[in-house]
């Protein structure tokens, strides 16, 4: 634009409008020419640099991606496609998030997970769970009550709404009766199906929790540990996140303390739900490592990065 100030005719001076209009017209013409030239040059430059996602800000033209990494956050806000970390082990301790982190989360599970609702541990989150559910009946058991009083399977209920995070805790009802191969095979299918139903969500798979020595279900902690180790490998293979919640529930003998579950050796009360959620709040993908965190048993260092569905999470530092 011209440096000269544009005179605005406020006074009674007659016939001075034409020079002013002339100036404005000239300025517009110059601006149009400059804009045209600018557009032509920019277009050429963009055509040249349409390669890797070198400019994260220009999300209007998403970079080519594999199917796994192509799903952006539902919000489709500008700075997307954050690269989330991949861990060699379980999700390590991170800086703590607030409860609002679970606003757009859902918890899928069995009787253990039903307690989240009952005890009001995290009132802002959704819980899709039912007693006795396993990796098969999660598809079939009429579990989740609807407004009209009918019940639908958990996996059907999961498709009713899109979430940013899915927390799964299943397998506790398999440990006693299933072999490891069947367990992993079924869990693998479940993870695939969850990702299909919730393509934009970050998927957290939580470990099976320990039981007391004399639990009434004849469950064995050694077998639980073996299943959990296999589950961790499965999570790495599937590119989802494994949370070693079990480590917070074990006493010095690697079992759930008797006092935690006096009735059946497996289910526990509100105190342990608080422990559980404290763990979840401090083991969050996309948050910086905890400032004073000690290296954890299964939590290995971050090795590289891969884009993960649910990229609306906090920026990975």
């Amino acid at each position, binding site marked *: 634009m011209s440096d000269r100030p544009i005179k605005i005719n406020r006074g009674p001076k007659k016939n001075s409008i034409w020079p002013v209009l002339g100036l404005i017209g000239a300025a517009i013409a110059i601006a149009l020419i400059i804009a045209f030239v600018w557009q032509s040059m920019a277009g050429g430059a963009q055509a040249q640099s349409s390669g890797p996602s070198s400019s994260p800000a220009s999300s209007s033209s998403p970079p080519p991606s594999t199917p796994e990494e192509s799903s952006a956050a539902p919000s489709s806000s500008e700075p997307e496609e954050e690269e989330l970390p991949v861990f060699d082990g379980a999700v390590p301790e991170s800086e703590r998030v607030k409860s609002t982190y679970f606003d757009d989360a859902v918890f899928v599970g069995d009787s253990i997970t039903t307690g989240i609702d*009952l005890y009001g541990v995290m009132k802002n989150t959704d819980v899709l769970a039912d007693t006795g559910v396993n990796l098969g009946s999660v598809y079939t058991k009429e579990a989740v009550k609807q407004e009209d009083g009918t019940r639908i399977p958990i996996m059907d209920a999961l498709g009713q709404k899109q979430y940013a995070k899915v927390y799964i805790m299943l397998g506790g009802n398999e440990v006693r009766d299933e072999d490891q191969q069947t367990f992993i095979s079924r869990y693998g299918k479940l993870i695939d199906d969850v990702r299909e139903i919730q393509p934009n969500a970050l998927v957290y798979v939580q470990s099976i929790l320990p039981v007391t020595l004399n639990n009434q279900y004849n469950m064995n902690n050694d077998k639980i540990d073996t299943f959990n180790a296999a589950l961790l490998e499965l999570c790495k293979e599937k590119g989802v996140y494994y949370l070693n919640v079990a480590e917070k529930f074990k006493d010095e003998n690697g079992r759930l303390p008797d006092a935690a579950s006096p009735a059946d050796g497996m*289910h526990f*009360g509100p105190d342990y739900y608080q422990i559980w959620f404290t763990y979840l709040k401090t083991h969050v993908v996309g948050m910086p490592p905890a400032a004073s965190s000690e290296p954890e048993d299964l939590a290995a260092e971050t090795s590289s990065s891969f884009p993960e569905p649910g990229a609306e999470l906090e920026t990975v530092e």
Partner: protein
Amino acid sequence: MRKLISGILAIAACAALLAGCGGKEADSGKQPAAADVVKAVADELTFKDAMITLEDDMVENIYNLDMEKIADKSCYISGSRATAEEVSVFQVKDSADLQMVKDAVAERIDDQKHAYESYNPGEMVKINGAVTLTHGNYVILVMADDTSKVEETFNAQF
């Protein structure tokens, strides 16, 4: 003398009549706190699990109730959900809403059957033997092993 005896008898008859009209539910007009009723009944029971009192705002997670119509409530349940043990008391503001509570209690019993019948059948004895009683504007649900004293204890609170 005869008149005196007649008078006394008449007064006694009237008193008996009034007591009969009132029935069992209007004997004292006491309005005990729901938590006190729960405690009195629970003290007579034996539980397998460590029990907890459910936080007030969590009650609607397990009972399908319009809480605006509830004057008082207290739910004492299995602390770990390992058992179906429960003592819950509700007091409605208006007796017209008693049916709402009874329906919610029936639904709760159904929910517990759903939860335990295949998973922990041992608990079905308590669920199938659930005791539901009403006294004035109060409703109580008890699921426990030996509920033989529940009715007596419950009615004694009023």
